C-alpha cells in the first residue's frame, strides 16, 4: 500500500502540468475573492459595531485571500520549474480512471440520497462499489448491500436517534419504516 502511494506521487509531466493548473486556479480564485470581497458581504449585521476601531467584516477575508493570492503566485513559479524536470513515465491512467469512477459514485450517492432516502441509496451505492471492487459472488454482494444500510439505519436511527432522510418514493419509505419497526420490536422489544 505504502509503495503504491509512493508510485502514485511521483511527478509525471501530466501531473506537473496539472499542478501548474491548480496553482493558477488558486491565484485567480483568491485574487478575485480578495478584490471583490466587499461585494460578497451581505447587508445586515450590527452597524454600530462597524466603527473605525473595530474590524470590518471585509478586512480579514480580504487580507487572507490577498495573502493566498501572493503565495499562490509563488506556487505557480515553483511548479512551472518542475515541468522541465518531470520525467516519470509511470502510466497512472488506470489509477485515475478508478479514482474518477469512485468520485462519480460518491457524487451520484449524494444526489440520490434526497430522492431515494438513505436506505435505498446506500443499498445501490454498496452494491455498485462491491461490484466495482471485484466482489463477484452474488450472494456476498446481495447480503452486503442489504446488511450495510439496514444495520447503519437501525443503529443510528433507533439507538442514537439520528434521523436519516426518508425516501420521497412512498412505497420505499413505507417499506423501510416497517422494516425498522420490525427490527426494533425484535432487537429492542418495543
Amino acid at each position, binding site marked *: *500500500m*505504502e509503495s*503504491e502511494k509512493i508510485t*502514485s*506521487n511521483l511527478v509525471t509531466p501530466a*501531473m506537473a502540468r496539472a499542478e501548474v493548473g*491548480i496553482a493558477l486556479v*488558486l491565484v485567480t480564485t483568491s485574487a478575485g475573492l480578495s478584490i471583490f*470581497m466587499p461585494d*460578497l*458581504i*451581505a*447587508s*445586515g*449585521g*450590527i452597524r454600530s*459595531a*462597524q466603527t*473605525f*476601531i*473595530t*474590524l470590518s*467584516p471585509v478586512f*480579514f477575508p480580504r487580507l*487572507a*485571500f490577498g*495573502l*493566498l493570492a501572493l*503565495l*499562490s503566485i509563488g*506556487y505557480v513559479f*515553483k511548479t512551472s520549474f518542475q515541468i522541465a524536470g518531470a520525467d516519470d513515465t509511470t502510466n497512472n491512467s*488506470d489509477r*485515475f480512471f*478508478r*479514482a474518477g469512477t*469512485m*468520485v462519480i459514485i*460518491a*457524487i451520484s*450517492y*449524494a444526489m440520490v*440520497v434526497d430522492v431515494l432516502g*438513505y436506505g435505498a441509496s*446506500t443499498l445501490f*451505492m*454498496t452494491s455498485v*462499489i*462491491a461490484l466495482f*471492487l*471485484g466482489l463477484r459472488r452474488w450472494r456476498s454482494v446481495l447480503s*452486503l448491500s442489504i446488511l*450495510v*444500510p439496514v444495520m*447503519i439505519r437501525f443503529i443510528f436511527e433507533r439507538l*442514537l*436517534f439520528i*434521523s*436519516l*432522510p426518508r425516501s420521497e418514493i412512498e412505497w420505499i419509505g413505507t417499506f423501510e419504516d416497517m422494516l425498522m419497526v420490525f427490527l426494533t420490536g425484535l432487537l429492542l422489544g418495543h
Partner: protein
Amino acid sequence: MLDAFFQGFTLLLRWDTYMYIAAGLAVGMFVGAMPGLTTILAMSVLLPISFKLEPMLGIPFLVGVYKGGIYGGSISAILVGIPGTGASIATTFDGPALTRKGQGRKALEMALYSSTIGDTLSDIFTLVMIGPIAIITLMVGPPEVFAVIIFSLVLIASVSSESGLKGAIAAILGMGLGFIGTDAATGSTRMTFGLEALSAGIPLIPLAIGVFAIPEVIEAVESRAVRFISENIDISKAGERLRWSEFKKSIRTILRSTAIGTGIGMVPGVGQVVAAFIGYSAAKRASSHPETFGQGELDGIAGPEAANNAVNGPTLVPLLTLGIPGDNVTAILLGAFVAHGMRPGPQIFQEQGPLMYALLITIVFANFLFIFLGYVLLKPFARAIQFKKAYLIPVILALAFVGTLSTGANSDVIIMVTIGICSYILRKFKFDLAPLIIAFVLAEPIEYRLSQTMLYARGDIFQYLFVQRPVASVFLAAAITWSFYLLFGPWVRRRLKGRLA
C-alpha cells in the same frame, strides 16, 4: 483548582464511560491496523456519535479512537512492514525483522506495553500540569492569545507539509473557509454567494469528513488490489511471548521516549510521526549495540511506540488552555467540545473545572482498558487487516454520509462531497490538509481576538501590539521571522551558494 480536581473524581463512577472508551479503543485499533485507513478518518466519521452522547461519554469515546488508532498502526507495521498510520513508520525499521526472526509476538507485546506506558505517564503529566498552565493562561489577554494562535498556525503550516509554501496555502485556504457565514463580531453574512446552506458557515462535520474520509476512500480504490495488504498473516506463527527480562531491558528506552513524546506533544503541529522518529534515534544512540538496530531490536520498537503515544496527552494542553488544536485530531476534539457547549480556552477550567478533570482522569484510566483490549484484540485485528476492500469501503462511505446527514441539513452532503473531491486533488499534489482544518477552526477565534485587540488599541494597533504587549510582540515577531525564513530561506541559500561557487 484542587476542588475541581476532587469533584472530577465523583463524575468517574460511571460504567458507561468505560464502555464507550472500550468501543472507541477497539474501533481505533481496527482502523489503525488497516494500512489504507487512518485514525483521523475514524474520528471524523464517528464525530457525530459523540455529539449525541453526554460529554462524559462522547469525548472519552473519541479519545479512545485516537489512542487505539496510534497503537493499531503498529500491528501491520510489525507483522508485514506496512505502517497502519504515519506514527508507525519508525516501527517498520525493526518490526518486520523481528517477525522474520520468529519474534513477532514479542514485538507486538513490546509495542503494546511501551505504548500504554508512554500514554499513561504523559496523561498523568498532562493532568498534573494543566491546572497551573490554565491559571497562567488566565493572565493573558486577547492580544497574547491572538499572537499565540498566529505563531501556532505558522508552526503547524511549516512542519506539516513537504514545503512551507504548501502548508501556508492549506492554512490560509482553511481560514478562508472559516470566514464563510456570519461574522462573529458584526453579525454580517459573507461569502455565502446567495446560498442559504452557507449562511451559518460550513459546519465542521461535513468539512472534517470531506477533508479526511472522502480522499482516503478514493485513494483506497485507486489500485486494483483486492485487499489493503496481500501478505498472509498467521499470528500463531508469530513466536513466543515477551519475557519480563526482555521488557526490563527496554524500560529506560520507554521512559526516555515518553519524555520526548511528552515534550513534543506540547508543541503545536509537530505530532506523533516526528516523536516516533526522535524516539527511535534516541534509543539507537543510547544503545550499547546500535549496529543491531534495523535488524530486529526490541528497543527499536519500544522507542518509537512509547514516543508516539506519549504525544496524545500533552496535545490537550494547548487545546484546553488556549483553545489551540495542535493537530488534526485535536481540531476534531475541539469540534466535539464546542458541540457540547464547552469552548476550550483560558476560562474553561474555571467554568467547567470538575468536568474537565473528570475527562482527564478518565483518559488516564482508559490506558488500563487499552492494555487489556490491546492484548485481547491483537489476534482478531491481525487477521482483520486482510479484509477485502469491497467490504470496508462501502461501510466507510455509508458512515461518512450518516455523519454528515446527522447535522440535519441534507445539503451538507453536497458540501462534504465537494470538499472531499477538492481535498483529494490537493492531496495528490502533496498538500497536507491538517493546517487547513486547524486554521478553519481557528478562523473565528483569530478574528474575534483581533477585534478585541483593536478595541483595546483604540486605533493604533501596531504600537499597541508591538510596544505595549511584549509577550504578544515576541510571538508575532517569531511568527513573522519564521514565515520569511520558510518562504525565502531556500531561495536565499541557493543565491548564496551560487555566488560562492
